[in-house]
């Protein structure tokens, strides 16, 4: 109990006496000024220019599972462009009976679907191949966001054009920006769950996420989610574009490289406590909170260890997560104030268990750059300060 009465309670406060701001003061609201630190952040030295770069979602400071668009990470190859709906055109050509051009208004007349999916950059956690590098969940795991998308199944557009949908065909998708980022998607995936999306979290896509139309490729690496989607081409082979051969390929220890590593495997991270989220109170009740996801389907279980992987206990899922979407987990503990080595380990519905760094390196070496879904470790000291560490 407080030793003296709290003046915030005993004294009349301004906000309880004067009036606040009226409606329409801010026609489209921003987060309150006290939350202005919860923003995307760039690590400048990682890339040559912010025009061709990436920033990080403040996952340490968010809760639940939906990422607000305004702080969802951005990745551009040639900068984010402003493209009006009126100027938007989507072409479908190649192995189709009728090459077609759609306007934005045309797209709005197709039956649409709404789903929640995570979008993770293949490079998320990539720095960690070389050991513990950047101190913060935002920087180790922030190349991810999770939104509710509304759009048209890609298969509807393929059907509209009379595409050859046999299983050995490919769908090449290309953006309208100067990078004309393009990726080849095998027909099986194109017919499965790929969406041509125009809304996220109930509103129009943001400029930085491909307004007015982007592709959503559930469970697959983020660079395939082509923004400002302008063309869909049906082909008899993969294009082997720059992004699919020279960039998003994973070099193994012997120098050979894996290509077409599309799926993002099961992964998790504790978002609080974490280096940017120290424990602000001493011993006693403590909420350990984190995120888990899998490109193969639903998260079935998340385990948490407080001793660096010697002992594990099953965490509580905030709610049963959607397939290929972020799932929130919690472990509610009575913290004794002793240091902890915190780890989380996700398991998805296929039975796949998130691997340790050691397991990953054993198979892949340390030069892969991409697809690092290792178990992450935070060392939390007796003061509640957390640090990114690597453990045996």
């Amino acid at each position, binding site marked *: 109990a407080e030793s003296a009465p709290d003046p915030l309670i005993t004294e009349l406060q301004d906000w309880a006496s004067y009036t606040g701001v009226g409606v329409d003061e801010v026609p489209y609201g921003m987060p309150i000024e006290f939350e202005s630190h919860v923003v995307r952040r760039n690590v400048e030295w990682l890339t040559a220019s912010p025009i061709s770069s990436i920033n990080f979602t403040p996952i340490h400071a968010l809760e639940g599972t939906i990422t607000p668009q305004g702080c969802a990470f951005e990745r551009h190859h040639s900068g984010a462009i402003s493209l009006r709906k009126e100027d938007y055109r989507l072409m479908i050509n190649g192995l189709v009976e009728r090459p077609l051009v759609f306007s934005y208004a045309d797209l709005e007349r197709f039956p649409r679907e709404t789903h929640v999916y995570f979008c993770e950059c293949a490079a998320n956690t990539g720095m960690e191949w070389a*050991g513990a590098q950047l101190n913060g969940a935002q920087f180790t795991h922030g190349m991810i966001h999770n939104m509710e998308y509304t759009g048209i199944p890609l298969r509807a557009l393929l059907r509209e054009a009379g595409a050859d949908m046999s299983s050995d065909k490919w769908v090449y998708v290309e953006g309208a920006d100067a990078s004309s980022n393009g990726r080849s998607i095998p027909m099986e995936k194109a017919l499965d769950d790929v969406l041509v999306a125009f809304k996220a979290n109930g509103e129009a896509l943001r400029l930085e996420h491909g307004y007015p139309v982007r592709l959503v490729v559930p469970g697959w690496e983020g660079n395939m989610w082509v923004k400002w989607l302008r063309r869909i081409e049906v082909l008899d082979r993969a294009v082997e574009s720059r992004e699919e051969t020279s960039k998003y390929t994973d070099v193994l220890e012997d120098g050979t490289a894996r290509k077409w590593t599309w799926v993002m495997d099961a992964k998790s991270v504790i978002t609080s406590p974490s280096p940017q989220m120290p424990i602000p109170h001493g011993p006693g009740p403590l909420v350990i909170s984190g995120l888990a996801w899998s490109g193969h389907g639903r998260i079935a279980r998340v385990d948490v260890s407080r001793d660096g992987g010697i002992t594990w206990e099953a965490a509580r899922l905030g709610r049963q997560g959607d397939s290929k979407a972020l799932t929130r987990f919690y472990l509610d503990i009575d913290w004794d104030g002793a240091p902890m080595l915190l780890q989380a380990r996700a398991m998805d519905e296929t039975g796949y268990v998130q691997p340790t760094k050691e397991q990953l390196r054993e198979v892949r070496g340390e030069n892969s750059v991409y697809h690092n879904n290792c178990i992450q470790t935070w060392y939390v000291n007796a003061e509640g300060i957390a640090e990114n560490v690597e453990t045996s």
Partner: protein
Amino acid sequence: GDGTARIAELETLVAEAAAASRSAPIQAAAAPLPDGAFGLGREAHPEEIAAWDVDVLPDGRGLPPGAGDVETGEELFAESCASCHGDFAEGVGNWPVLAGGFDTLDREDPVKTVGSYWPYLSTAWDYIHRSMPFGEAGTLSADDTYAIVAYILYSNDLVDDDFELSDANFAQVEMHNSDGFIVDDRPETEYPAWRAEPCMQECKDEARITMRSVFLVGTPPEGGSESIPNPNRDVALPSFTADGPSFIPAAAPAEAPTAAAEAAAPAEVETADADAGDALVAAGEQVFRKCKACHQVGEGAVNRSGPHLNGLLGREMGSVDGFKYSDVFRAAQAEGRVWDEAALAEFLAKPRAYMPGTKMSFSGLRSEEDLAAISAYLASFGEGS
């Protein structure tokens, strides 16, 4: 870029596409709607398809007619590309290096250039034509693109300085790393092993912190981030056991040496503190798991893809009978160099730096503790004579 040439190129493509559409009956206006179609959208004009469908496939499909030589390419490169990629395609700042890096793919930090890494020439042509120069994408004519690609091949020593690249000889250019890729094999190499019920209790004896964060990251109110080197990186943190954290340094004696360590540690280990030595040997046995695929040690050890390691400390480098050493080890033996703890530590920290040309593909041990432990472990298998 030459805008006139680009327009001429587009006109050619449009003419071709228009001719193709005239001969294709499927383009007839009366074509019935496919099953399940809504009749939305409109048919694309051949001119529109020609303007946007410019991707080039590995087999050369999609390449427009044209040609360009190394010399022209060098001039264009200096003008339009060198500010980011360097005069010799060596890269400026963090911008991509386009040349060199051969034989680095199996080393630490591989240099992935058009020459060392890209498996298809079509990828370079397609990307440069569509997306480069940065900030002026789509302005290069077909001939300019052939010339710049020819210069990049030349800067990688893949063609001579009098080479001219064209749609006619495009397919004959062999890329250095064309066999360097495999299709995603995680379903075979990873998923079966990693779909096992995970351990929940007593999963290991100890969890030791082997590395602290390299950078602390400041998050200023104005946005962005500030990385600073972690001043406490070298300060030891506690190890964890099932009993919780302990502040005993990592290499200190364990409560009880494991049975394996007792069996493995013969009397030759001379140390002031036998318990500490045992613990170090036990730790070394764990580290040695990284070596086991290629090296044997102990009773009955024979050469595998690496030489056996009995009596390693004190023995001449490159001296195990019947093992086919690389040149660098044969030279070391000729010089009479001998394995001691310091040499071993330096070698194992960065094998290819210490013994350039060694066949050993291991990338190296990062931590001082691991190096000390492996040395103690190998020492426990006797001194060389």
